[in-house]
Every structure is written in structure tokens, then in C-alpha cells.
């Protein structure tokens, strides 16, 4: 059974493995940090958030300061889908952000039906308009 853990990552409960949701590729053990199975690229933040005002003239330009900010991108090693974009001070260790109890997860899903798509939650239903013309 597959559990959709993030928009980009799936855990297969039987195999206890992380999978890419984009290409289904098996990435590695669900009991380990998924980041250790991905490709990693450190980016100058100004390559993403480019200066909006002239960087030769101004100190602050709407672009992050590369001496204060590094963006670390994580890709599926097979299809190159971007799974996370982590903002860190340069040199800071990446977070072990998702550490799930896999045994508990298996027990929890033993009573649940498998999903074929992630459950995105209730749709927005605009409330009924109360002030109709004619006072209905």
C-alpha cells in the first residue's frame, strides 16, 4: 500500500521504502532520511529571487543576501522533480525534516483503505448569499 507523505514523496508500506511520486522510482528505506537518497544542489539565492532593483546601485534589492542565505534544492535522482527547496544560512546542516514511526504508520494504515490519489481536503463551497434582490 502506498501512503502519500508529501506532494512529491510516497512511502510503500510493504517494502518500507520511499518512492518518487513523479516517476515511481524506489529511493531507499523509509526508516531513513529521504534526503540522503536525492540529488542536492546548493544555489545562490539571487539565481532564484533575482534583484528587482539595480544591484550595482543599491544595497537591498529584493534579492536575498548570498552571505546570509543559501537555497538547497533536492531532486529525484531519476526524473529530477524538485521535492524540496530548503532555505538555510550558508553551511547550516540540512534538517532531518520527516522522521516517521514506520511501525506505527503500518498499524495505522492496516485499518484504512488505500488511496489512489492524495486526499487534498474539502473543496471550497462559497456560502449562500443572504442578501438577494427583492428580499427573498
Amino acid at each position, binding site marked *: 500500500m502506498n*501512503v*502519500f*507523505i*508529501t*506532494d*512529491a514523496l510516497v512511502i510503500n508500506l510493504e517494502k518500507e521504502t520511499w518512492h518518487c511520486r513523479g516517476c515511481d522510482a524506489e529511493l531507499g528505506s523509509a526508516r531513513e532520511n529521504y*534526503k540522503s537518497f*536525492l*540529488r*542536492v*544542489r*546548493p544555489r545562490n539565492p539571487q539565481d*532564484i*529571487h*533575482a534583484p*528587482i*532593483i*539595480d544591484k550595482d546601485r*543599491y544595497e*537591498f*534589492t*529584493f*534579492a*536575498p*543576501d548570498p*552571505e*546570509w*542565505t543559501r*537555497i538547497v*534544492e*533536492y*531532486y529525484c535522482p531519476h526524473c*529530477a*522533480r*524538485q*521535492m*524540496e*527547496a*530548503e*532555505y538555510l*544560512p*550558508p*553551511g*547550516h*546542516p*540540512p*534538517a532531518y*525534516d520527516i*522522521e*516517521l*514511526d514506520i511501525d*506505527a*504508520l503500518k498499524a*495505522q494504515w492496516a485499518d*484504512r*483503505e488505500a488511496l489512489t490519489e492524495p*486526499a*487534498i*481536503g*474539502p473543496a471550497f463551497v462559497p456560502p449562500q448569499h443572504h442578501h438577494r434582490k427583492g428580499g427573498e
Partner: protein
Amino acid sequence: MTLDTNQPQSGETPETGDEGVSEFLRDTSLFLAPDPLIMNNHGVEDRTPLEEESLAAEKDPARLEIVRERLLAGANESFDMLESMGAAPGAKWGDCVSAIFTASGDLSLASTGGVVIFCNLVQYPIKFINKYWTNEPTVGVREGDAFLVNDARYGQAHNTDQSMMMPVFWEGKLVAWVGATVHEGENGAIEPGGMPSMAEQVWDEGLKMSPFRVAENYTLRRDIVTFLQNSVREPKLQYADMKVKMFTCRRLEQRMHEAISEFGLEAVVACLRSNLEDTDVEVRKRLKEWPDGTVRHSWWTDGTLRENAMIKINLALTKRGDRLIFDYRGSSPEFTNRSNNSLDITLKGMLAQLFLTYIWPDLPRNQGVLAPIEFIFDERSIIKPDFGTPNAQSMMSVFTSWSVAQVCVMKYLYSVPDKYTRVIAPWFNMINTFLFGGVTQHGEMVGNVCADINGMGGGALADRDGQHSCAPIFATMADLGEQEFMEEEMPFVQLVSKKLMKDNQGFGRQRGGMGYQMILALRDSPVWGFMLTAIGSKFPNVPGLFGGYGCPTYPLCRISNVDVFEAMQSDPSQFRYSIEELMNERPFAEGKYSTHPMFMPYSLAERGELYMIAQGTGGGFGDPLERDPEEVMRDYQEDLVSEDVAWRIYRVVFDPETRIVDEEATRSARDEARKQRLDESMSFEDYCADYVTETPPANLPYYGSWEDPAMVYAGSPDRYYPAGQVNPPVVMPNPLEVKIARLERELAEARQG
């Protein structure tokens, strides 16, 4: 550092068992500081005998629901009164709330609109009054009394807010409390407007009202009102809103009395109590549906509002069964002479808002939502500062702490099959707005804040872009205010107002809601100044989610040595209607163009010089290379993204004239970009070996943990201490002295030739 979830966490310390000792201590206390027994308990109080009786007598949930709807209608009616009559700008734009509390002081029922965090925090001063003033012969609590509080340390978000509390009696017995809170603004602090970033001591923060009685027999005491009016820059506002809050409380009291008359006291008491208990039970049930584990996320605020500094907020969120534990250890130590610290109660109140608006908006708005949730902080950290540490600008740390929690919760929520709302990327979280103070065109002295504080961009969802400049994180139903209305009362004009800023986008498969730009200038006033109290000019304020990017950074842009009103009269074609064009094209030949961080102490303004900022954008969701090219074209058509962003971020190939996408070329450009990703990336192991360092960069003024949350830095690599034990504590130098020292050094070097 690990968290043992088998040990129940208890924030409470036992009260001394010896009644004689307690009585002696009570009678000889010189000063009644906030009571840690009250302040450290965010849970629900034990049932009172009346609550026990009432719950035993009233068991029909349908009847209790009718009572609840009746009380909620009263709360909403009183909220409407508060919003329509309130004199503070904050009240007019929804930065207020009204609520009903149990006799013990627990928040049981908040108005549907308004700011949940405010009333969540009012539980603490009510509990203080119950404990210390009820039996105090010089005070007492009687029918027709009203109490006021603004000192955050006794229970407020920051002391620009003022809460009024009124006991509700029935047949001579206290049966409930009602309350009304407004973000009042001006409070007599060292700077006008109520949120002083220059406050270095708690005494710089203005009024410090511990809970005290301001009205008897439903009448404000004129001697006290006069004293308070003399303590602030807006005496009219202080008086007007005390009256407004009292009438709001009276309407709530009236609706309570009517409900008791109709349904009986037991039904009303049982309703208020079961609200809390039912919410607690429901939250535990919903938490069981989340996966068990630990989710971690850190973020950095890039300034104290006086200087740039890298300040960590660290969170490990552990969920096991029906327990949820927020472990904020490893966050930055407190700044003892800066106002950017937030009390832990403020953060807890903000998290109540997170759950009640972003996760479970269907739950009744009361404090039962936090009853199953536990918190761990380092003492004397930026989110649990000491009694004597300023907190007037608590938003600088509490909003980031809230966003860190939002990210963690979304990582739990995504896999849960039954949701009550949708997973969303981080909402923009910073108050990119102007505070102001001075004398208006009508000759009145004022000090307050622009409603654009509410213009934060919404985060993107899995299947939908975020909403532009939509609502603040602390109130989902708030208003941006009418600019024309503001200009009738205030002597400044927004020459560009609510115009979305191109490329100010949280990129993603779904993009964040974007922020608008504000270009304003002073027109006619004998004396007027602006002030700016936001962070995020070097390190962004929010990330994206699941491969989406966060917001960019934001500066203050200024053009001085120009009177734009004169310039527009002589040659209107000079003006440009965006920050980008004004700053890059420099249309005013004599103008002096500069950029600054988003914090600026109160500074006097000249007529016609330009102050320019942008509201922030919410985070993006998912890989930007998967964004539908047609949606990129829609943003391009609406001037929300440039050709550069359409190509550099989204890799869309199109004809700029017709906006027709070349689908084949776009597909291959995206494939090429994916190939480039793999070519230019490395393994996680290599990344950690080559790019992760043992300590923060030496040039970065860094505060908080690095790898180990048990150890924190206090400004430099050599100041490294166990968390909670930073000694000497963090004391920042005066930025002006730092600047003078630098200039003197340069001067000395120049003189030596």
C-alpha cells in the same frame, strides 16, 4: 537532545501544601508579579462544583447546541459593535475580538470574526483577577465592574493591545466573564504607535497596565481615565475605546443574562464547559489520525529591528498517539535590550489561531484546542524571555515561530485521509507596513499603524495559487481599509496603493499570493514622522512547500530631496507608478535614492519625499517546472511576472506579443533544465561533506543552535553556551555608537594618510 514521549510533560509546579505559609506569603507580598502557576498552564481548569452540577443536569447535546448558537450570536453581535464603534484603526479593520469565558477564566467562545490569539491570552488576566483581586479588601470583584489590562506579561500579545474584562453575575454569584480586546495602537511608548522597536527596557514600552479595575457600576472612573489619557499620545482614542469596549462587554453580559433567563443557569454553564471539553476530546481524536513521528523545521529572522542579525527559531514537532509536543529548544537566546522577544503565552495563543483557522476551522473557537498540546522552551530564549526583557515587537519572533509550526503541521497533514481544510504553503508572515505619528491636518496628535498590516499574501495550495495580499496570519477575516478614508484623517497620501508588484512571487507549480506595493508621501503637517518595523531584507521570511520557493526579501526604498507634489504639478510625466521604475529609472534629477532594511526608527518626514515598500508573497507549492504554461502566461498578461521569470524560473517559451506558448519548445526547455539539475547536483553525502560547516560563518552575527539544539551561539562563533544558560546575556550595542566608532576609525585611518 531527544524527547522522551513516554514521560507526561507537566509545566506546573506544586503549590505549597502549608496553608499557613501561603497566607503569610500572601499578606506580606510587596509586589504581585504574573503568577507562574497561571502563566505556565495553557490547559483547561478543573471543573467547578457548579460546572459538575450543570453537566449532570444538562445532558441533551441538541439543547446545548441551541444555547451555544445563542451565545455565539451574542458574541458576533458584540464583535460587530466593537468593529463599527471602535476608534482605533485596528478596530475598524478587524484587529479586535470579543469573547465569553468560564467563571474560572477559560476562553470558551470567541466571536467568529476577529483575532483568536487576543482572547486566548485574556484567560490569564482573568485568572489573575480571580486569584488575587476577588478576596482582596481594597479591590474585590462585583457586578458592574470592568477591568483593563495591556501588560503582555500578565497575558496579552504585546502591550499595544488593550483588553477589557467584565464579570457576569447571576443572583449574586459570579458565573462567567466576558471580554473585548482591540489593537489600540498608541500607548505612550518611546516611539508613537504602540510598537516601539527602540524599546531597550520594559519601561520604554509605554503603559504597563496589570489587570486593574477601571469601572464600577458600569461607569468608567474618570480619575483613572484621565490618568491613562495623560499617559498616551492619543487621549481621545484612549477614552473612546474604553467606552466602546465597556459597551461591548455590557452587550455580551446582557446576552448572557437573557440566555440564562430563557434556558436556565445550568444550561449556560454546561454549554460553556462542554465547549471546552468537547473540543479537547475532538482534537485528541483528530491527532490520532496523524502519522506518529517527529517533523523538524528551522527558520531565521534576519534582524532585531535595530540591526541585522541571524536569529534562529528551531522546532521539533513530535506526535505520538493523541499527543502533540512543540519542542522549541535550540532557538535563539533572548535579546535583553531589544523588543523582538515574544512571551511563550503569545506563541501558544498564535498556535491556537493556527489550528482554529488553518487546520480545523470547523472547531468552536476556544482554548480547548490547545489542551492536548504540550510545549518545551529554553528559559531566557527569544520565545520565553525573562520578566524584565522587552517584548513590544513580539511579532518579530512569534510570527516566524508560527510559520515554522505551519510548515511542520503541513508535513503531518498531507498524508491524513480525512482533512478539515487543505494543505497550504506558508502564508506571508511579516508586517510590511508603516507606523506613523505626528499632528494631522485637523490639528490632532495621533500615533498608529496603516491597515496594510493586513495585506499578507496567502500560501499556495496543491491545486490552486495563493491569494494576493489577502489577510494577516493572525486574523483570517480582516480588512485592508479604505485609503481614501485614511487620507481624510491623516496628512499623507499613498500615491501608489494596492498595486501588485511584478516578480514579487513565491514560485511553484502553484504560486503564492503576491504582495502589493505602497508608495507614500507626507503632504501637509507641521510635524510628522514614519516608522517601519519589519524584518526580511537579507534572509526571506517564509519558505515554500514541497519543492516550491519562498518569498523574496524586502527593502525600504526612499527618494528624498524631492517634493513629489511640486514635481507632479510642474511635470506630471516624471512620475512612475512602481518601485522598480522609480528606483531604476530615477526620474527626479535632484532626488537622492536609497535602500534600507525594513526597519526604521521613528523619523521625521519632509513634504513630498517618497517612502516605498512592498507587501510580501506567500510560499509556492511544488516544482515550478511543473507549472501549467498557460498559468504563467496569465501571470505575464496581468504583469505579475516578467519575461525573465517566465523563462528563468518556469522555462516557458512563448511569443511576448501574442503570449502564445510554444509547447514543444517549452517541453524540451524543461527537459533540458531537468538534465541540468542532475548534472549540477551531487549526492547528499557529498553535499554534507563539502558544504556543511561545523560552526556558523564567522562574518554572520548568529544567534541560536547550529547542529545540536542543546547548545546555542550568542552572536559569534566564540560565544557558545548550553541553551538557556547564555552568560553574560545578549546585550546589543547602540547601532549609532557602532556607526560612530566605524566612522572614527575610518577618519583616523584617513588622517594617517
